[in-house]
Structure formats: C-alpha cells, structure tokens
C-alpha cells in the first residue's frame, strides 16, 4: 500500500478498524472450534492412554491400548481392506469421472441436462444412496437373475451382498453412481481451463484423439486430477456409511473398514480407550499421508 493511500485512510475517522472489534467478531466461531474440536481432541488423546469403559470409572494404563492394536487381527485386516478399497475406488472413480467430463465438455444441445443427470446422485445423502442400492441388490436385480438363469448362465440367483467378492463390487458400483458426477464437475472445471489453441496446435501437428488425450489433456489436467486423488483417498480411508448400510462389514468380516472397527470397539465392545487409540493412529496416518501428498504436489510445481 502506498504512503498516500495510508494517509488517506488515516484521514477518515470511521475507516480505522479497531482490532478488538475484529477479534470479537471471530470469537464465537473460535469458541466453538476450541470447545467442540480442540478439547475433544485432547480428551481423545487422554482416552487412548486409559482404560475407559463406556460406563464406569476410567483409569490410566499408559500405552496398553496401543499395544493391543498390534494384537488385534481385525485392525490389520481392516487396514488391508480399507487400502484395497481406496485403490480400487480411486481408479474406478477417476476413469468414470474423466469419461463423463469428456462427454459433456463441449456445449451442445441437451448438455446441461446430461450434466444434471450425472450430478444429481451427489444431491442424495450417502445413507439414502446406500439404502436405495440395498433394495436394488436385494430385490431389484431379480429380473436380471431370472434372465441369466433362463439362459443357463447361472443356476441360482446371485446373492449380491452375501458373498465377499460381489459385496465389495456392490459397494464400488453404488459409490461410483453417487460420486462420479461430483468428480466429473471438478475435472470439467479443469478441462475448461485448457485453452482451445492448445488443442488446435495438437490437431495441426496431426495428433490423433488418443495422443491428444495422453500428451495434451492429461498433463494439463494434472492439478484437477491431483485434487480428486486427495479427496477420493481421504474419503475412502474414512469409509463408513456405504459399508455399514450395505454389508455391515460382512459377509464374514470381509468388508470391515477402519472406521467400522472404531465404532465397534466403542459401542459394541464398550471400550472407548481402545477406540480412541485406533482413531489416534488413523489420524496420525492421515496427517502423514496428506503431508506426503502436499510435498509431492509442491515438488511437481
């Protein structure tokens, strides 16, 4: 700010903003953040080093809860499953979202309607979406089953949610339906920021569609793709509703995620200390992962 602007500003009596007013304006939000975020976070850390039953008196036990994590087979299994889910949903969502974004990139008749159709599932709550597909897998696909049975391809109806492989697939399909339009929108914003003359140059150089996608579109879309990747992975590592509603972790604990383990420890086994310890570990993992992703992004720039 130039000196002239400064003196001009000082000259106006009312335009001097008192720091105290600013602080008071921000104070209510800050109090909510401290009371409902910082204090519980500190309590979570304390719970993680205590024997803290849902009902009854807590007592300090040091690192006991953390040591127990190593001996808890379900935690290891859930970690592996959550990582697998994150990898699969990342690839599937990015591919479908990019395909949709390419389809609706150019303005033409009806393109707004198409975008709305792809995006509308994102307006449905995750729990409602899961319930919608629960019914679909449970009873709605019986015409498909009947047709396959009639053709002799299967000998009895497919129990979509009752077998580990198809249960996992069922969740991936539901999540793709619910989120593809959301990520399509982010990628669409990225696509539209690529100037037309870049494509014109590629065309003049004789690049075909595939070459243009690989050597022009994808590199220029990198920031949007990176953003989608961070959001998808973070969301997948904290997956809960989709599995809780569709499979409840089953069959045979084959679809138990980390968050399902935490909720079970707390409210099925009534062991808040153990649940807090696992969630502190998950928190630590997420922080490390985000820092790594941010560093990788920064190095690229």
């Amino acid at each position, binding site marked *: 700010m130039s000196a002239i602007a400064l003196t001009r500003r000082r000259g*106006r009596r*009312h*335009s001097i*903003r*008192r*720091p*105290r*007013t*600013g*602080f*008071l*304006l*921000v104070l*209510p*939000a*800050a109090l*909510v*953040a401290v009371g409902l*975020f*910082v*204090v*519980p*976070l500190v309590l979570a850390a304390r719970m993680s080093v205590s024997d803290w039953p849902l009902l009854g008196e807590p007592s300090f036990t040091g690192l006991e809860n953390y040591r127990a994590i190593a001996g808890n087979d379900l935690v290891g299994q859930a970690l592996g499953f959550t990582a697998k889910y994150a990898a699969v949903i990342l690839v599937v969502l990015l591919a479908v979202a990019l395909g949709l974004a390419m*389809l*609706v990139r150019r303005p033409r008749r009806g393109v707004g309607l*198409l975008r709305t*159709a*792809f995006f*509308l*599932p994102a*307006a449905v*709550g*995750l*729990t*409602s979406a899961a*319930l*919608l597909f629960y*019914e*679909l897998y449970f009873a709605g696909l019986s015409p498909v089953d009947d047709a396959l049975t009639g053709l002799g391809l299967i000998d009895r109806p497919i129990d979509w949610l009752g077998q580990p492989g198809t249960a996992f697939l069922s969740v991936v399909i539901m999540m793709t*339906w619910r989120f593809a*339009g959301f990520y399509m*929108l*982010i990628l669409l914003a990225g696509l539209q920021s690529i100037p037309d003359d870049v494509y014109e*140059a590629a065309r*003049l*150089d*004789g690049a075909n569609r595939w070459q243009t996608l690989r050597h022009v579109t994808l590199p220029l879309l990198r920031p949007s793709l990176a*953003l989608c990747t961070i959001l998808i992975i973070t969301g997948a590592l*904290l997956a*809960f509703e989709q599995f809780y509603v569709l499979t409840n972790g089953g069959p045979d604990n084959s679809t138990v995620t980390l*968050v399902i383990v*935490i909720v079970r420890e*707390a409210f099925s086994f009534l062991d*808040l200390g153990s*649940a*807090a310890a696992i*969630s*502190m570990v*998950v928190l630590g993992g997420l*922080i490390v992962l985000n820092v790594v992703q941010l560093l990788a992004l920064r190095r690229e720039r």
Partner: protein
Amino acid sequence: MTALLTRPTAAPGAARRARHRRAGVVSGVLAALLALLFAFPLVRAAILSVTDGGGLTTDNYGKLADFGAGLPTYLWNSAVVTVITVAGSLALAIPAGYGFARYTFRGKNLIFVLILAILMIPHPTILIPLYVLLGDLGLQNTLIGVALVMIMFQLPFSVFMMRIAFSAVPEELEEAAMLDGCSETRAMLRVSLAAVVPSVVTVGLFAFFAAWNEFLTPLILLNDGSRFTLPIALVSLRSGDFGAVDLGALQAGVIVSALPCVVLFLLLQRHYVRGLLAGALRG
C-alpha cells in the same frame, strides 16, 4: 512450419468433418444412455414407492408413516437438527468471515488455521470424546447436541466461504457508506452483507445438506429411538428393528429423505455447484 506443411487440404478436411459428425452422434447416444443409467435407481424407487403390482397405491407411504416412533417424529427431529445447524452456521460464519476479511488482530492467522484444521480430523476420532463431553454438559442424546457438533464440522467451509466473499467486496463501498453517515455496523449490514447474499445461500445450502443427511454423528450421539433423525430411522427400518423388513416402505423412506435435497439442488443448482468448486479448490 511443419504444422503449416501438413495442414490438411480441402478434401481430407471434409472427410475429417464427416468423421467428427459421426463421432458426435455416437458420443451423444452414449451420453444419453449413461444419463438414463444414472437416473435409473432414483426413478425406479420413485415409481415403485407408489405402485403395487400394477395399480397406484399410497400403502408404502402409509406404512412408512407408522413405522417405529412414526415418520412425523423422525422428520421433525431431522428438521430441528437441520434448522439449528443452518442458523448456527450462518450466525457464526457471517461475523467471523467479516472479521477475518476486514480486520487485523493478534492471533488472527492462528485462529483461522485452527478452524481449517477441523477438516483434517476423522469424524469418529472426535465423536467418541464428544459423546463423553456432551454427557458432562447434559447434552448427550439431544438434538441440540447433534446440531452443535454439525455446526462445528461445517465451520471450516462456512467461515472460509464467508471470508472469501467479504474479501471480494471492495472496502471503498463501505467507506463511501460511512462517509454518508452510516455507522460501521450499518455500513457492513447495508453494503457488504447485501453483496455476499449468494455466498450466504451457498453456506446455508451446504449446512442443510450436511445436517439433513448426516448419519455417523446422530448414530453415535443419540441412543433414544424417539430422538432418531430420518437416516438413522431408515437404517433401523432396513435392519428389521421395527419387525419384518418392508422394502416398499424403505423405498418410500428413501424418496422422502432424498426429495428435499433433490428439489433444493434443482432450484439452487448454481449456488450448489459454485460451493462445491470453492470447497474443492480449498484443498
């Protein structure tokens, strides 16, 4: 230079255009089929919820009205949580956004980073101690407790959006109003608040969607069936907690729960999309 030399002559150009047209038709048909596929689950549930083997029926909605503590109870509970969350988010974020955008004071950056850090926390990490803390405050198993936690989860997005919005309003506008004799408060209200109405709508809309659809927070904080919000009640219905699972009533329930969001989205699509992009770009 090479580009100039290899520039297609007129005839291949026509062939290319024809190929483009064909590709355009193919991708148009593909896109339309995909759109039908995306619309299928919702449209199917809407149709099935009002039909019964052939004729129209309201049976499914009738059964839904009576399940558990009754649909009106669950709708009311969800509405209470949603209204408090929307009102609370706006009441906190509008002044805070203005404070962050227009003032400098000690600790400003620290407080802002603290609010943004809420985004990083896995919800169960904080919900388990909140269950204990709200118990100490006498807010365990209450809708107000759930709404307070929802306001906290929405805080980073709400404050961030309002800060950006107020920063985009030229300060000179307010100064002009003050020179005309307005007090600082009235200048803020008259000039700036009027200019940020679109962002206020976006923040309110997102608080609405989050509160109306939230599952984990009320699942952990509420344990009395008559206080359940709609998503919790529907999952209980699915799990057979109220007797045999009635898929027809479940369809109807999903439609009732999705309808307000779908309607609001279609009405305020522009605000919703803008908010999503702003929310996404903060990452």
